[in-house]
């Protein structure tokens, strides 16, 4: 064990729902290192939410954008080094590895060690050059063309045939099934990453990834192979398992020999379903974001890298245990606003320690749906966090639809997870209702369940239909009625706006688009950007008539019968989470300002802010329609008129509801009490306290297990032995 403090600087803490690898790398080193360790997190802005994860980085430091060049980066690292000496630097982003590789000699003279491949070797295998590298080294890879001029995308795409992948030159990839989609995605990826796009043959198969560390002489120090088991709609491996595939291992080592590599490396492959052959998809010059899996598998690659940087010739870690799994879930934290201000002002800040969830064990058992972060973060995860802190609540039962629901692996949040049936086909509505009722009653009989809270838009109608039967069986719930929902739906709000019934709130002008003619009319009226929305969920911004056509067609193909068009309202975005009692009276609410949103428009950072006029207006509106239960209200303050536009009202809590526990405004607790017709509890904190803490969310790998997944399938439940 080391006695002197090891000091390592790590980058790559941003990325939100598509996390950069820095947090996982830092967590792995923190989790394994024997001896004193200090981690300096290097971030490009204060909103790199992973950097604020308690117990990982000790401090965060702002560094200049890569575009400012080598000298700016070196100067900043030197300045940080003077204040907080650094022994080793591990860059975790594709674009910065060549930069730090170029600076390696100068950093070494300062006493900062690195282990990075030479910039020219990295350049040889970038996405743009990989096809040529593979050709010259006889490595199988999907046929790929780099199209610099976007006007040529259609020709090349048609020549490839569909489906095919459109890839950004640095990151990002979308599978497309026709020319229109190819053009749409090419425009958006090229705008983001520059340099045109790559068109790549779609090889259907399973995805396998190899993470490696190469010593300075190019030999392999350590490697772990992983197969993506659960891929979300964006093709990201949310669940994965270590494997032992001798053929893949051999191929990876052969490729490593040809790369003349040193340092961390990721090789991505697809094994063709048709031929069984492995195609090399990507070579990345850093660890993958799932690298924390190697800590679960007792073969910690980031720690091995750090040991090798500090003392070359270090002992290799043991081979990874096979069949070890991870699931990518989320962690939600509150960060003192003062810390963020400090980072912005001085360029450095301490990362505050964690505030553990205060767990109570009351007598009420609550079932919660929507407990997954597999696609989007669902509200059930934050709700469970809140109920853990509620003194009246005892058992929390996670209600999962599939073994991919990531909340299933959160034993810190749930006492037990039970499977509930999926059936969303309208023609089988009654049968589906019956199965759900039967399952919930069975869960109550076996485990006790006093209240059930559905957290997904698509379930609200079903739970409302069976609410009376549930109550007869002793399970209470509190949900808005279909009539109230209709009145405050997007179409309903548009009507209310027309009747000037929204008071201080505005609602964007809305056109229902039933056909192409309506779409053309909407485009003519609103210009760009315009927003297209489904009645219940989904929305997309479009910037041209062609994009509008592609999005409209996609929505139609996906079964949206009514599509709405609105002009985009420019301004800061706000949200209000609220809960009403059975009489439609507002019990409590949390208004907040959204600070950071992911690509899909979901809130990953926010701060409580008083909006008294808005809340009063919402209370009036809710009372008027007799709204019962939770709501998620989305608003935008027009940057020119300063008027607040109501964007939509959803019939469940927002996904950021975990923040309620952090600022002592526990709305889920109020909802459970209201569902049981108990009086609400009064908040013990004042409004100023709420504004001291910023909500942040990070993606984080948690241990998963195939046995748990099998148990959920076979037995319909998994317990965590807390009884």
């Amino acid at each position: 064990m080391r006695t002197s403090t090891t000091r390592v600087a790590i980058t790559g803490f941003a990325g939100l729902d598509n996390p950069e690898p820095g947090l996982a790398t830092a967590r792995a080193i923190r989790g394994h290192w024997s001896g004193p360790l200090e981690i300096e997190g290097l971030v490009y802005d204060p909103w790199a939410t992973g950097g604020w994860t308690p117990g990982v980085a000790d401090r965060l430091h702002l560094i200049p954008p890569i575009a400012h060049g080598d000298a700016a980066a070196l100067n900043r690292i030197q300045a940080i080094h003077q204040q907080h000496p650094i022994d080793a630097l591990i860059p975790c982003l594709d674009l910065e590895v060549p930069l730090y590789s170029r600076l390696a000699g100068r950093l070494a003279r300062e006493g900062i060690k690195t282990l990075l491949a030479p910039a020219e070797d990295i350049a040889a295998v970038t996405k743009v050059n990989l096809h040529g590298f593979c050709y010259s080294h006889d490595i199988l890879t999907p046929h790929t063309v780099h199209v610099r001029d976007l006007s040529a995308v259609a020709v090349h795409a048609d020549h490839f045939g569909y489906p095919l992948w459109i890839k950004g030159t640095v990151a990002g990839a979308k599978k497309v099934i026709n020319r229109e989609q190819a053009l749409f995605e090419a425009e958006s990826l090229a705008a983001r990453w520059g340099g045109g796009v790559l068109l790549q043959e779609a090889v259907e198969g399973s995805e396998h990834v190899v993470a490696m560390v190469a010593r300075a002489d190019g030999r392999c120090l350590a490697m772990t192979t992983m197969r993506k088991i659960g891929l979300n709609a964006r093709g990201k491996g949310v669940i994965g398992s270590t494997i032992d595939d001798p053929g893949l291992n051999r191929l990876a080592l052969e490729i490593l020999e040809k790369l003349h590599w040193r340092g961390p490396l990721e090789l991505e492959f697809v094994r063709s379903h048709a031929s069984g052959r492995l195609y090399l998809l990507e070579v990345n010059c850093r660890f993958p974001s799932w690298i924390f899996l190697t800590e679960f598998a007792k073969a910690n690659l980031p720690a091995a890298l750090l040991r090798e940087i500090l003392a070359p010739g270090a002992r290799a870690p043991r081979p990874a245990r096979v069949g070890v799994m991870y699931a990518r879930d989320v962690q939600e934290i509150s960060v003192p606003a003062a810390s963020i201000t400090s980072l912005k002002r001085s360029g450095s800040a301490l990362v505050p320690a964690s505030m553990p969830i205060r767990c109570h064990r009351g007598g009420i058992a609550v079932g919660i749906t929507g407990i997954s972060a597999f696609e989007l973060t669902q509200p059930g995860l934050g709700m469970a966090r809140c109920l853990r802190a509620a003194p009246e609540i005892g058992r929390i039962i996670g209600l999962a639809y599939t073994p991919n629901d990531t909340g299933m692996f959160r034993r810190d949040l749930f006492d037990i997870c039970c499977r509930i049936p999926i059936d969303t086909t309208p023609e089988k509505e009654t049968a589906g209702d019956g199965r759900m009722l039967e399952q919930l009653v069975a869960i109550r009989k076996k485990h006790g369940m006093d209240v059930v809270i559905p957290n997904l838009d698509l379930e609200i109608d079903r739970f409302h239909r069976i609410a009376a039967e549930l109550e007869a069986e002793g399970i209470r719930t509190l949900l808005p009625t279909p009539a109230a929902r209709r009145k405050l739906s997007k179409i309903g709000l548009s009507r209310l706006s027309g009747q000037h019934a929204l008071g201080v709130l505005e609602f964007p002008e809305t056109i229902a688009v039933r056909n192409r003619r309506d779409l053309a009319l909407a485009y003519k009226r609103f210009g760009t950007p315009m927003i297209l929305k489904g009645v219940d969920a989904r929305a997309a911004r479009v910037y041209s008539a062609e994009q509008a056509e592609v999005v409209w067609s996609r929505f139609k193909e996906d079964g949206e019968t009514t599509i709405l068009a609105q002009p985009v309202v420019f301004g800061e975005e706000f949200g209000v989470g609220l809960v009403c009692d059975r009489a439609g009276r507002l019990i409590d609410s949390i208004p907040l300002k959204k600070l950071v949103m992911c690509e899909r428009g979901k809130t990953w950072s926010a701060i409580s802010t008083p909006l008294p006029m808005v809340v009063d207006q919402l209370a009036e509106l809710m009372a008027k329609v007799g709204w019962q239960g939770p709501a998620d209200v989305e608003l935008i303050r027009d940057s020119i008129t300063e008027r607040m536009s109501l964007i939509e009202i959803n019939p469940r809590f927002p996904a950021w509801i975990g923040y309620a526990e952090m600022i002592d405004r526990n709305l889920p607790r109020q909802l459970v009490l209201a569902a049981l017709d108990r009086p609400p509890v009064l908040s013990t904190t004042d409004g100023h306290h709420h504004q001291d803490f910023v909500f942040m969310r990070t993606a984080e790998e948690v241990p998963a297990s195939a046995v748990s997944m099998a148990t959920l399938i076979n037995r319909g439940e998994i317990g965590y032995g807390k009884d």
Partner: protein
Amino acid sequence: MMTPRSSKSASLRLRSRIRLEPDAEGEGGMLFDTQTAMICACNSSAWTIVSAMRKGNDADRLTGLITGAYEVNQTTARKDVLSLVKELRTLDMLEPD
């Protein structure tokens, strides 16, 4: 001339890379392919069959195990065994004949 052997008489053996992991209550479990990470969840009767396939067994003996352990007639048991064998072959979890 070689004739392909049917699952009925052939020795049915799980590949050595297949790991059997019982679930918490030990009445079912899952098969995990350590090379491909393929997972096959097994209820208690399927678990009885795959456990007996670890060292190799033929379909008749596997059918006997099911009729001995569960209240099921031979025809149904054989059908279940052959159905599971077919699924395991699709997942490439059985040694070739």
